[in-house]
């Protein structure tokens, strides 16, 4: 769940802010003015598979499986979101009604290896 930096290619969270004015959507989206469309990117070599899992025991369990089954040949671990949060949006619909809703799991807060 580290933020990406230039000197590592391990699984990390890449931050990116989309400003609705830049995409010409600020006329119908009242709030917020933009949002973080973060994403997960980077390598997940087997020795970090399952980290940072939801619980440290998760990583240990996965690592033991890898050692016990010598999974070098098959299977691989992916860099995925491990924690996300909702985005509250206030916007005009096509009838000029104002609509407020919370979109669940919209913003990636943390990444990790499956």
């Amino acid at each position, binding site marked *: 769940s580290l933020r*990406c930096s*230039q000197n590592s*290619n391990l699984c990390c969270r*890449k931050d*990116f802010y*989309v400003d609705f004015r*830049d*995409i010409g*959507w600020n*006329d*119908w989206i*009242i709030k917020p003015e933009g*949002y973080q*469309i973060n*994403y*997960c*990117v*980077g390598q997940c070599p087997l020795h970090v598979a399952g980290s940072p899992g939801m619980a440290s025991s998760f990583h240990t369990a996965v690592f033991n499986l890898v050692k016990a089954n010598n999974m070098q040949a098959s299977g691989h671990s*992916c*860099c*995925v979101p491990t924690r996300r949060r909702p985005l509250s*949006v*206030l*916007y*005009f*619909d*096509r*009838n*000029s*009604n*104002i*609509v*407020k*809703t*919370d*979109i*669940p799991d*919209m913003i990636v807060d943390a990444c990790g290896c499956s």
Partner: protein
Amino acid sequence: AAAEPRCPSCPAGAERWLLEEVAKKQLLEKLRLRDRPRLAHAVPRAAVARALRRLQAGGARRSPGGPGEEEEEEEQSYEIISFAETDLTSPSSLGLQFQFSQAQDQDLRILQAQLWLYLRVPRASLTLRIFLAAEAGAGAGGNRTLLGERQLSTTGSGWRSFPLLPALQSFFSGQSRTLRLELESRGGGSDVSAQLNASWSHQPFLVAKVKVREPEHRVAKR
């Protein structure tokens, strides 16, 4: 992006363009919109600000967790503010038209609905009739179904809210819906506009809270 190896040599523009396209797609998908809305007509900022204050006031009253809150949390909820298009059908009767549309395959359940009016007099005597109109331009004579009727009892002038449930309970099923409210002044002949201000600066509006439940989701629940 996760599948692609990072692209240090990519021109920043290409990555930015790609992510902005992804953001657009993601937002429309999560808001269940086919395309970004093109506004039918502009809404004055003052009206938006006033209505948002009501929405926040209503949100503050929101009841803390109820039974089965985790189930409730799984259904996405929407709060909608709709501004009336008014037509004076006669000196004693005012029509308010509200237009709603939602994406297909959505089963909306209405939790709250209030009509907000600006009363000029502390004791207005008005009859409110609630209709489901056949189409947007129906007007007074158009084809419509009476959903409910009630006498409004008011105390004090200024902005006042009037609950619209249970008449609206079945209103939100179906794609595009036009709600028509008619306010008639009682007590012989006094003009409805003497009792309430429905001008552009005091546009009546409706605040509703609805929940969406996906059809397959309901089956899973059962």
